[in-house]
């Protein structure tokens, strides 16, 4: 039998992947110093603002939907059959 492709199941590969991701994240922030910035809002002057914004926005979205789901809108799958 052909051996199946299971690269993503090996812990050492996940480790490599994590390192690669961190490097890419750092590059994306450092790139900002290489380009000519076109200031459209005051906050555009702060370096890495879009990175911080993206992270915080997603964190807030995740936490809000977790809370709404847990205390209000998430129900058992047979909810409508009851």
């Amino acid at each position, binding site marked *: 039998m052909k051996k*199946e*492709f*299971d690269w*993503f*199941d090996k812990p050492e590969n996940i480790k490599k992947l994590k390192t690669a*991701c961190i490097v*890419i*994240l750092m590059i*994306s*922030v450092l*790139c*900002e110093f*290489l*380009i*000519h*910035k*076109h200031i*459209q*809002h005051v906050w555009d002057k702060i370096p*890495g603002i*879009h*990175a*911080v*914004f*993206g*992270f915080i*926005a*997603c*964190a*807030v*979205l*995740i*936490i*809000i*939907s*977790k809370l*709404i*789901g847990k205390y*209000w*809108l*998430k*129900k*058992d*799958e047979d*909810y*409508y059959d009851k």
Partner: protein
Amino acid sequence: MISNLPAPAIVFIIGALISLLFKNKLKQIILLLIPALGFYLVWNLTGDSSFAFSLSGLELNMLKVDKLSKVFGYIFCIASFGSFLFALHVKENLEHFSALIYVGSALGVVFAGDFISLYIFWEFMAFSSVMLILARKTKKASDAGFRYLLIHVVGGLVLLAGILLQYSNTGSFAITHITSKTISSYLILIGFLINAAVPPLSAWMSDAYPESTATGGVFLSAFTTKTAVYVLLRTFYGWDILIYLGAAMTIYGIIFAIMENDARRILAYSIMNQVGFMIVGIGIGTQMSMNGAAAHAFAHIIYKGLLWMSAGSVLYMTGKTKCTDLGGLYKTMPVTLVCCCIAAAAISAFPLTSGFTTKTMILQSSINQHFTIIYIILEIASAGVFLHAGVKFPYFVFFAKDKGLRASDPKKNMQIAMIFFAVLCIAIGVYPKPLYNILPYAVDYNAYTGDHVVSMLQLLLFSGLAFFVFLGLLKRTETITLDTDWFYRKGVRLIVNSVTYVISKIAYAFDFVFIKSLPAILAKFTQKPLSAIAGFFAGIIKKEPFYSGYAAESSGPEWLTIIAVGPVVLVSVIILMILAGVLVF
């Protein structure tokens, strides 16, 4: 003569009838020829083309052509070509037939020259699309299908009421930019917004689309909401309310998509999120924002179709759609995985994909018009898109925990269709010029400035980081998420139950008072008035039912009554006799 070409809608509808006559290979060729012929027709249409006829005094025009309608004409033909390629192996006649009618009527709406033709095709769309849901042949699908139809019939009636009211005000069925804020305008707007899935009129989509067949979902994702975007672009551009509704929609879609467990339901909510961007563009109403909305609709139909194809492939091969049942499929479905990731990148607007060259136009026009808060909301939504459609969907379906599923890539035609759309996603991202050229207004916009690229990359990559940091909170649970369909699925039942409860209580009270108590009390009172009254009070004091025992008692004379009433009766009789004597003598 180019100007006497038939409307593309007619080609699809006649094609649908012809397709019923053939089988196997020949039928497959016809299914692919019809969209190709449709594309050729749209290509050759010009401003003078018309397809008009009169129906009992009404002048109907089914072919009014300008640049805006041509953009949607092109993309509808391309989308239907890809979708039929994906669905080519399906043997069900009904599915292909209704899909052809559905695409044809969507094209009919796009090229409609007056509100009556628009309305006729609008209704055709609702009735043909529901077949793609019913064709799944499960109880859940047929229930959801009928709810879907119900909402669209109501929406259609609201639209019709608006159209007729507008006709009685203006005497015209012409489709023009609507500026007056009258009841008729709002009715038409509501009719359109229902099809665009604007909350709270949106739950039909997440309720019904995921129940469609593996291939039907690909069709559904493309046409209903995008025809609504088209008609809004044509009639309601510049309406402020659309900016706020659209912005709310982008966030609403994300929050629900994060909560969902069903992969196809996640995709339905992300349609809502993406249509939100387009509606903001329509609401801003500048040439750039409207170009952005049209371009984004064009790009969206392709990458969203591709996402539905990959989810459809997984459903087709494994029979499963829930994230809790899926995982680890990267090992055996590489083609599906790669195509899915390309679509996920495109919907997230990664540079070099179609989303980047189209969505950023809408973002830029919100900056240009100084809608700062709206811009911030759209940025949050852009980050959230990557979170739910860009990472969550592929991660839980293809990676996460291996659930031991060993499904291979789907049939060849499905794979080719996915590759076709994936190539288009990248082509529009790398070289957007041909798309920009067909937009309604001249485009003076370059997405690839260092600024745009770097800020978008930062935004998206760090959203991805947030996903993995908060992975614990995103763990899938075997649950469903309530949406506004609760009101007509559960709410109505609650109302019926509570009304029934109240009515039964009233009936019980009537029975108690008029059948059980009153006759007994009256019977007692006529026989033994005083003891009846005394008993009544005694009953109240003793907290006993005041009618208890009344009827069962013996009806013999009562000493108490005779002593109390006797003298009075005696005196009355004497007085009466005296009176009679006086009168006689």
